[in-house]
Structure formats: structure tokens, C-alpha cells
């Protein structure tokens, strides 16, 4: 007995009887049980000739299931593991950076009034919001977002990361990762790129992570045209990727709203742990306008993120329980529960966050429902109509999802008909018809292929569509 120099213990319940330790042992110490099995039915390994063991660890090294502990007398090396090596408390880097809770409203000092393109406003507003990262791939008509970010070099000032990815697929998955870390991250693209991003959109929805995704739409399908379109309405508002999910969809109709919706989008995304989208079109992206920029806010510190997003993947500081961000759940009941939770969040968003602008709806005989650039052109058409004594009002959905159905229903209460001008073949009109439950005529007017109508064309569509003298 005393001549034994090694021994092993084998966790026979973990063991899967693969026999690899038996083969690896240079001294033939081990064998699999011939008849006996463990609770999972495996013939587990055991020390058949314990006296021969020299404690060489070969069996333990090759064991795929980490079942084996090795003992050696006298030990050649001190036991390495057991208690975890916890790092010495480091001075908290976050603390030095910590600032007063920054203002959240997006009003700004006069010095922040400037003239810029819609796409540039997105970039600058994001830096000022305290964004942590942008990941994108160039595509017209939104490449100015990445270009402006690279010009601004925010990594030198706020520490924001900017990465030109190798594709939209990579970009959206970078956003997915950054969002999973509790960071304020975003991407921007245009229609063909947004199609490639649907994978990430679905995974982010399933993982309940907050992110901002911008689509400055162009005409499709296919490579289509680089000119404005609203034809990604279905894709943006009804899901787009696989599975039951929604993103909040904000539709700016001015450069100011491009800037404002960056902050709003992130605030909503973090509030509901969902993806917010800005769905603009080439008109709004390329248009130059005066914009009041939000004040510069500091980026959140590591500690703030850990506090505000306790679910985020940040590393197990203080050895807190591990955080895992995943979209996978193979237990059907649990996956159903996940889905019910997503749906409950969507109902809450519908209740609290539906936004629209009402223009002259109090006395209107005719209603226009339009968003984005089409709402701007429709405003002019309304003026022309009222000058001719035709009382037209407008509902401009600001959130396309959740859709302002209730507001449209109310605004149409005394109207004789609704015109829905869109830069597509008729997408939002379906939601408008549902909103008024087809109780009054609803007509679509659309230009396709990158064409944008004049106010006269819209007025014409209204008067001819409803036979208004």
C-alpha cells in the first residue's frame, strides 16, 4: 500500500464511458465497468489496478467531461485550482469619469444651431447623445453618416468607437454585440443593406437588447435606384426578419427630427430593451436644413452601464452571477413564455409610445395620412387645397410602429375620405384602412422608382380620387 504514488477519483455520474482515459493511461490502471452503469446508462471508468497509478494526469487531460481528479504523493506541484483567483480591487476607472446626471432633454444653446444634411445630423446627434459605437457599411443615400463620423473623429473626444464593417451582415452583428454589452450603439444603411440586416434585427429582438438602426430608404426592389422611396414600410413595421417581433419605427420629416429621433430612439430602446429604428428616405437624408443640436452628454461609464443594464455582458466584475445574452431556447414552454413577454412589451409600447402630428384635423372634410418626406409635400398640397376652399387635414404618423390608429380614427370621424400618399405602391394604406375599419373611402397615391411627386400631383390625386369639384 505505502508504495502507491498516485491515485485518481472519477466522477462516475459525469462519466460518459468514452474510454479515452483508459487508452491514455500509460500503466493500464483504468477500465470501464463491464456491467455496472451510472444514472445516465454509461459504463463508467474506474481504477481497475489502483496500485499501478503514478499520478501522471494523462487520463484527466484527455477526459472530455472533466470527470477525473488526480492525486500524487508527494505532490509535484501545489494545487492550482479550487478557489478562484479574484483580481485585486483596482481603482475604479469609471469613477473619475463620472459626471452629474446629464440633461436628457434635447433643447440646446443657440450656438448649437447649424445648417446640415439630414444624414449628418444623425451622426452629430449620436456623438452628442454620448453614443458608444457606430458600425456600418457604405451605401447611397446615407453614406454621409459614416463619412461625417470619420471626419468628427469622436474616438479622440468622447471615446466613441467607429468601425467600417465588411458588410451590413457584419455591421448589424457588431451592433447586436455592442447592444448586448449595454452600450449605446447604432448603424445606418439603405434598403439593400437593410435586407441583409434582417438576421440581426430578429436576433436582437429575441435577445431583448437596445439598439438604434437607421434605414434611409431608396427605391427597390433589388438594387433598384439610389433615389428616395418609402417601400421598406412593410419590412420595417411588420418585422422583416423571421419570428414574431417588432421594432419601434420613428419616421422623421425634417433634419431637426433626424437629430431628435436619435436620442428618442435610444431612450425608447433602453426603456423597453428593444430595437428602435429611424425610417427616413433619401429626401430627408440629403436635405439641408437648420437644426438645433442637443447638448453634448458624456458617455456612460462602465459602472453606470453595470447599474443601468444589470443584464448586460460586461464581465463578471465582483464575480456576480454570469450574464448570457442569447436568442436560443429549446424548451418550448420557456420559448413560449419568452414570446409572451415580448408581446407584453409590444402592448406596453403601443399604449405609451404611439406618436403622431395632427394638422388642421378639427374641421377637415378630407384627411391625408402621410409620413416622412411625403408629409412635407402633403403640407404644401393642403395649403393649396385650403386656398381653393377644400378643407383638408393631415395625420402624420411619427411612430409607424406602433401605428397611430386611434388618432387616425378620431381625426377621420367627420371626414368623407382619406388619401394616403406614399413613395411606394401602397403599404401604409393597409394600416390606415384597418384603423378606420373601412368605414370611409381610403385612396392611395404613390410614385415609384425614386420619383417624388409635387404638391400639385397630390392635390390632383385628392380632387380626382374623391371627385371634389
Amino acid at each position, binding site marked *: 500500500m505505502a508504495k502507491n504514488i498516485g491515485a485518481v477519483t472519477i466522477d462516475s455520474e459525469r462519466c460518459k464511458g468514452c474510454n479515452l482515459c483508459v487508452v491514455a493511461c500509460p500503466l493500464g490502471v483504468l477500465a470501464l465497468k463491464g456491467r455496472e452503469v451510472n444514472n445516465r446508462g454509461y459504463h463508467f471508468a474506474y481504477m481497475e489496478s489502483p496500485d499501478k497509478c503514478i*499520478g501522471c494526469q494523462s487520463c484527466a487531460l*484527455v477526459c472530455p467531461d*472533466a470527470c477525473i481528479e488526480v492525486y500524487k504523493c508527494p505532490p509535484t506541484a501545489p494545487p492550482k485550482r479550487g478557489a478562484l483567483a479574484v483580481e485585486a480591487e483596482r481603482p475604479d476607472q469609471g469613477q473619475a469619469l463620472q459626471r452629474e446626471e446629464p440633461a436628457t432633454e434635447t433643447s440646446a444653446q443657440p450656438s448649437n444651431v447649424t445648417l446640415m444634411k439630414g444624414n449628418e445630423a444623425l451622426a452629430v446627434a449620436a456623438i452628442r447623445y454620448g453614443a458608444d459605437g457606430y458600425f456600418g457599411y457604405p451605401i447611397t443615400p446615407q453614406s454621409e453618416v459614416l463619412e461625417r463620423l470619420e471626419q468628427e473623429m469622436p474616438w479622440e473626444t468622447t471615446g466613441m468607437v467607429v468601425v467600417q464593417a465588411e458588410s451590413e*451582415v457584419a455591421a448589424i452583428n457588431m451592433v447586436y*454585440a455592442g447592444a448586448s454589452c449595454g452600450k449605446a450603439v447604432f448603424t445606418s444603411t439603405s434598403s439593400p443593406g437593410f435586407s441583409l440586416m434582417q438576421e440581426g434585427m430578429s436576433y436582437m429582438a429575441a435577445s431583448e437588447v437596445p439598439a438604434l438602426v437607421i434605414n434611409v430608404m431608396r427605391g427597390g426592389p433589388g438594387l433598384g435606384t439610389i433615389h428616395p422611396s418609402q417601400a421598406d414600410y412593410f419590412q420595417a413595421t411588420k418585422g422583416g426578419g423571421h419570428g414574431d417581433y417588432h421594432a419601434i419605427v420613428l419616421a422623421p420629416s425634417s433634419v431637426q427630427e433626424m437629430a431628435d429621433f436619435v436620442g428618442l430612439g435610444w431612450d425608447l430602446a433602453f426603456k423597453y430593451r428593444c430595437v428602435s429604428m429611424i425610417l427616413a428616405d433619401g429626401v430627408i437624408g440629403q436635405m439641408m436644413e437648420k437644426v438645433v443640436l442637443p447638448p453634448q452628454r458624456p458617455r456612460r461609464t462602465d459602472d453606470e452601464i453595470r447599474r443601468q443594464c444589470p443584464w448586460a455582458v460586461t464581465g463578471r466584475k465582483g464575480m456576480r452571477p454570469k450574464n448570457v445574452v442569447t436568442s436560443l431556447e429549446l424548451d418550448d414552454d420557456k420559448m413560449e413564455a419568452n414570446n409572451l413577454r415580448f408581446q407584453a412589451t409590444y402592448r406596453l409600447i403601443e399604449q405609451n409610445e404611439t406618436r403622431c402630428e395632427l394638422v388642421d384635423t378639427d374641421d377637415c372634410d378630407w384627411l391625408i395620412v402621410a409620413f416622412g418626406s411625403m408629409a412635407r409635400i402633403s403640407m404644401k398640397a393642403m395649403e393649396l387645397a385650403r386656398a381653393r376652399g377644400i378643407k383638408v387635414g393631415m395625420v402624420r404618423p411619427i411612430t409607424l410602429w406602433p401605428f397611430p390608429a386611434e388618432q387616425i380614427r378620431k381625426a377621420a370621424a367627420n371626414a368623407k375620405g382619406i388619401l394616403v400618399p406614399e413613395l411606394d405602391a401602397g403599404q401604409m394604406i393597409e394600416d390606415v384602412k384597418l384603423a378606420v375599419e373601412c368605414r370611409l373611402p381610403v385612396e392611395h397615391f404613390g410614385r415609384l422608382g425614386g420619383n417624388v411627386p409635387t404638391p400639385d400631383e397630390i392635390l390632383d390625386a385628392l380632387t380626382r380620387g374623391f371627385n371634389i369639384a
Partner: protein
Amino acid sequence: MNAIIQPQNRVYSRPSLLNDAHMHYCPGCSHGVVHKLVAEVIEDMGVAENAIGVSPVGCAVFAYNYIDIDWLEAAHGRATAMATAVKRLMPDRLVFTYQGDGDFAAIGTCESIHACNRAENIAIIFINNAIYGMTGGQMAPTTLLGQKTATCPYGRRVDLNGYPLSITPLLAQLDGTCYVTRQSVHTPGAVRKAKAAIRKAFDNSIACRGASVVEIVSTCNSGWKMSPEKANQWMVEHMFEKYPLGDLKSND
């Protein structure tokens, strides 16, 4: 015998970061050994609080259930894109991906090459078992000529399926990689070497030296329809010719 089994005599035990959960892998699967090594290395480095792993779609999808660190679960092939963002946003963390051959070298080839080429400071553990284990043993980009799988049931043919892809040497040519190596885990000696390689790759990530790739030439005994022992023999006899072990690049 029992006299030796005393805490002070313990020279090897399961790393505590590898938790009690029963791993879903088939008996003898190489994934188990590599999981153990990853857990050991993180523990040896004392960086459990700072480590973030990205698990793949493939048999290792549930790596996050077994190794107790923070994890992200990527879409199929996108792990290196995710790791890119994590490391850029939190440069002081150890960030690594763990991916199979289908994940890394088929659907994720674009992301894999570009993350390496951008010199992202991440470590990549690449499990090359020459098959799609998870989905039931279909042909992988790394499947050998003549090797039978569910989707090349008579053996891989050049005219039908093209050549096996040896991606690691391509990555070694990129300026962005600092360490590219091929290892295996079929013998005690190989396991020790593989562990040293993972340690080096993880050290590189923390020190921000560029991208490190540790390919582990592995077995999938279920997919290959062999016993674990036979699978190891088959790997030595067939895989090592196409995928020879050793360092392909090491910038020290």
C-alpha cells in the same frame, strides 16, 4: 490507495469555472476537452471577471451553460463580428470566440477573414472536426476528399464538392494575425500543447497584440460514426495530412 486521496495531494481537478452541468456532448467529443482547457486557462490567468466569450451556432452553442463567464450567443457565423464590437467597446477585456468549421469557415468566412485582417484583438478557438456535427453530420468546408458525410454519402468528390478548405494558413498570411496555430487534443501531450496555445492566444487578446487563431483539429465520433478511440486514430491517419499540427505564425 485512499491514503493518497487528500486535498494536499491533489495535482489535477476540474476547473471550477467549468460548472456541474452535464455537458450535452457525445461521449468522447473533442469539444469537451477544449471547454475544459478554456476554463482552465481563464482560471489560471485569473481573468474570470474580465472574460467575455462568444459561442457559435454548432454543437458548442451551449458553451455558455458550462463555462461560468459572461457570454454572447452569436448568429451562425457571426461570432468574430460580435467579438470585434465587444473588444472595441471594452478594450481591457479578454474577448474570444469559440466556433466550429461550418460556423467559422463556411457561413462566417467573410466575418472571420475580416476580423483577422483588421487585427481585432480577439482570440479565436476554431474546432475543425471536418463535419457539421450539430445538424447531423453533413459535409463541412473542411471535410476531406473521400470522406463520407450525410450530404456526400459516397465520399467528398472534387467535381461535385470542390476541395477541403484549409483556412488557417490563409489567416496566417494576413497582417492582422499575430498568432496562428494548429493543435489537437487526442493525447495527453497534445492536450498540454493545446492548452499552452490557448493561453498564448488569450494573453494576446489582453495585451492587444492582434488576432490569434487556435485551430483544434478535432473528432466528431458521432458524425464520423466511429468509437471515440477509432475517431482519434482516423484523425491522426487522415486529418493531420491535410491539416498538419504546429504553429503557422507566431509574432513574439
